[in-house]
């Protein structure tokens, strides 16, 4: 087992260190100092199909163990709408970098964005993922007019992500609702892997 001390490392570094370690060893223990880092590691483990366990030592210390040999048993799940879309080749993801839709007038743009998300919930084919970055993170903040629609999408199995660096920049990290905080590595990956990218 390889041990990694990632205390004090910023956002994507613990994940990068862990991935590197997993190339040469089967079990990695990573110590991080924040919960978001543990969530990112969990996501990574799930993607790779590796076992994940976490132990909170204190508010500033979390120990995560990722084990290649202990894959999660929950592999045989019924098909989600995402997988159904994949089969039909209709899958898409929504990437949103602003609170306003289009250029011209921001009052109109705000109204259009709300309309966009309402209409999104009513589509026959839902997106696999909704990714919010830059001004788009405000859409997932407490009091946002599209929270109701984001909740509807989540209830229907859509994954909603918000850029952590962006939320931090605007000082709204604590107010982010419904969206999972993620980083640029993951966002690029989501863009790259999306069958189609839809931008309002």
């Amino acid at each position: 087992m390889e041990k990694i001390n990632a205390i004090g490392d910023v956002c994507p570094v613990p994940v990068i260190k862990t991935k590197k370690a997993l190339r040469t060893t089967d079990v990695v223990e990573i110590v991080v100092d924040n919960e978001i880092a543990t969530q990112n590691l969990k996501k990574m483990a799930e993607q790779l199909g590796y076992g994940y366990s976490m132990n909170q030592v204190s508010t500033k210390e979390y120990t995560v163990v990722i084990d290649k040999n202990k894959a999660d048993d929950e592999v045989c799940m019924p098909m989600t709408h995402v997988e159904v879309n994949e089969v039909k080749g209709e899958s898409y993801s929504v990437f949103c970098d602003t609170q306003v839709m289009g250029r011209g007038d921001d009052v109109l743009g705000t109204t259009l964005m709300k309309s966009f998300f309402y209409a999104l919930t009513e589509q026959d084919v839902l997106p696999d993922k909704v990714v919010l970055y830059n001004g788009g993170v405000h859409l997932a903040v407490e009091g946002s007019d599209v929270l109701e629609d984001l909740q509807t999408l989540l209830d229907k199995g859509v994954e909603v992500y918000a850029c952590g660096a962006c939320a931090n920049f605007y000082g709204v990290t604590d107010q982010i609702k419904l969206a999972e905080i993620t980083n640029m590595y993951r966002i690029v990956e989501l863009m790259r892997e999306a069958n189609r990218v839809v931008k309002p």
Partner: protein
Amino acid sequence: MEYLLVFDSTHQAITMETRVKEAGLLKARLIPTPETITASCGLSLKFQATDIEQINDFLQQERFTKTAYYRIVTDGLQKTFEPLEDK
């Protein structure tokens, strides 16, 4: 039960949204007008039936004309819209 108020002007729709928000009608919101209703600027106010008197007051205060009310009828996954004649 929910009603829909259809506008023929986007400016009117946005003004009404501001009015209902100020009044604290949290369940009221603008949505894109359903495709089955054609006579519209494309935006409608969806609201609780119980709020209709208040919304009617706003309409009269703003002197908005050429608007229309619809009743939202949900039958399973199918939604239909029936015009309200008496308002």
